[in-house]
């Protein structure tokens, strides 16, 4: 990994050197140097965000370097970002492992005039110029309930598995889903009966799912915002002979739930298109650098190939295009 990082950084140094001339020009509209780091490299989901971002950069006449450590460790991510800053890019794009831990280095970057955009997982607001959010909390809640409706159109008891009680997005999703199940007609068929925490751990999620099915004999759907817990719940349903009685849904990578959709033990899971998310994130940073987009509340980011995206409070640009995978569609995705 170190080798790969060094190699890419080496290439970056070279590229920066080549670009140094034009970089001095005043209001540029293209030819920006973008550097991107995901939570960790090698994982198909993040690799696709990287490919999407590279595609955007190529179309816009920018160059983009995608690098990072091969596992999600915040100190390594800070190191990567420091290396980025010393190479004086025009823009940095990242998925933060720990929003507060990366804030200081990001602030340094911004102080040097580098535009910082986060995607997938946000950093502290002061550390970035914008956050390209895959889905708003409400969209996430709705798409998970929609998937649950595909599983159990007649409704019934639902239970949640979240990472932890302090995981902000999971907690917000559950709160909104609980509200929607009480207030919105089509979701009123569901009643929330339990919430458990599994810390994004496969085995823990599996055990929790098994215990949930024991605790609630009438349980219909287990919903999880964790892409680790949702497939583990699907596996638990299959392994304990609850197929057809209990369903698992929530956010999951297609590769992790393909098996269950194809063998018919599950019907629907939700996610978003990582390629396009990366594309939009790079596009947004480019537009900001080119002076064509200012991420203020209400501003609209126009990405011709992907759509128009609205900006909310704290420079949050919502990408907001959820996908639902079913047996028919899951084969189309390669992440």
């Amino acid at each position, binding site marked *: *990994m170190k080798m790969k990082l060094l190699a890419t950084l080496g290439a970056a140094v070279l590229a920066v050197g080549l670009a140094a001339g034009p970089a001095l020009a005043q209001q540029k509209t293209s030819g920006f140097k973008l550097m991107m780091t995901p939570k*960790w*490299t*090698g*994982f*198909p989901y*993040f690799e696709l965000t990287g490919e999407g971002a590279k595609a955007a950069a190529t179309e816009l006449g920018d160059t983009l370097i995608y690098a990072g450590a*091969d*596992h999600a460790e915040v100190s390594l991510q800070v190191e990567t970002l420091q290396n980025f800053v010393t190479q004086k890019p025009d823009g940095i794009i990242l998925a933060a492992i720990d929003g507060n831990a990366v804030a200081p280095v990001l602030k340094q970057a911004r102080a040097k005039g580098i535009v910082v955009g986060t995607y997938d997982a946000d950093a502290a607001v002061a550390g970035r110029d914008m956050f390209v959010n895959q889905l708003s909390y409400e969209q996430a809640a709705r798409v998970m309930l929609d998937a649950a409706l595909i599983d159990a159109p007649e409704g019934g008891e639902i239970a949640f598995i979240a990472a932890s*009680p302090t995981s902000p997005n999971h907690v917000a999703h559950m709160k909104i889903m609980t509200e929607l199940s009480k207030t919105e007609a089509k979701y009123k068929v569901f009643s929330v009966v*339990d919430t*458990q*925490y599994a810390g994004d*751990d*496969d*085995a823990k999620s*599996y*055990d*929790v799912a*098994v*215990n*949930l099915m*024991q*605790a609630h*004999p009438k349980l219909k759907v287990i919903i999880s915002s964790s892409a*680790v817990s949702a*497939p*583990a719940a699907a*596996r638990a349903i*299959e*392994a*304990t002979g609850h197929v057809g009685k209990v369903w698992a849904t929530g956010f999951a*990578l297609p*590769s*992790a739930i*393909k*098996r*269950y959709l*194809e063998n018919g033990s599950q019907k629907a899971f939700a996610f978003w298109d990582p390629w396009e998310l990366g594309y939009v994130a790079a596009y947004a940073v480019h537009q900001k650098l080119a002076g064509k987009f200012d991420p203020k509340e209400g501003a609209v980011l126009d990405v011709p190939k992907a759509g128009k995206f609205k900006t909310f409070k704290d420079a949050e640009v919502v990408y907001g295009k959820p996908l639902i995978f079913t047996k028919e569609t899951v084969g189309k995705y390669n992440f």
Partner: protein
Amino acid sequence: MSEAPSVAARPGSRNLVEVVLRLREAGVVVFLVVLGLAFGLATDRFLSVQNLTTVASSAAILAIAACAQAIVLITRNLDVSVGSMMGLVAYLTADWAATHPGITPVEVVAIPLMIGTVLGAINGLLVAYGRVPALIATLGTMSLYRGFTYIYAHGQEVTSSRLPPWMLSSVDARIGGLPILILVSIAIVAVVAWLLHAYPFGRRLYAVGSNGVAAWFFGLRAERVVFFAYVACGFLCGIAGLLYAARVGTVTVVLANGWEMSSLASAVIGGVSVSGGSGTVVGAALGAVVLATIDNGLVLLRVPEFWRMFIQGAAIVAAVAVDALIAEAIRRSTGGRRR
């Protein structure tokens, strides 16, 4: 197993030690029964056959890991690389299975056992022959094995759709209504218990753990005993890692993270002393059942997660405290006669 410690203990103290050890074994069973009754009274869903099967399935893999940990603990050492060994074995096996579509069940079983044995042997070499303190050596290999898993995986994971379908369905299979996982676990624990009971190697483990100096006087080569204890531990972790991978279906680099603690907790709750020389693998396996019972019962009672962690932690601390008290009692009663 009760005669095992007699190698080290002098005849005079034998009866007392035996009684106390029996009590410890019985203690886990009593605790389990009390726990079961309490949960049974509190919720009618607990004592159903289906739920008890669930508890046993959850405990099955941990019981094997606890058994592995117990073997090392008995020699007065410990192994904190248990989780990392399981993780590395599981990842390498799953990755091999995913990239070799024609893989046979024999290979799927043989690969993790071989890797586990090698990893255990490395620990054994460091502790027994390298004279590195067990905690330091296995803390080192804990990071080493996990680190290697990261390097090897390169950020990837092995998803269930890439594993041969039979690998997943075979751990879900049931024989006579009982999940095969439970039967496999019982069989493994029983075989290990029997081997330790019937062969001199078992008694040597206890001898080395309870009184290394006396064991040396008896002509025992402690290094070799400790080495093989670690090898056995690695071998069992190989089995546990394979079962874990097949059970969860998605194999990530963090698989079995923290299992060093839960295996240690199970063993200690099950009456295996951290000061070596006492306890049995059956006790350790029962300790795993206790942990799984607490987990299941508290979910059935809708106890919030934070309380579950708190109660589990309290159970572990209580078990270690009782262990220390018993050890102290034994030391006092035999103190005059036992060096």
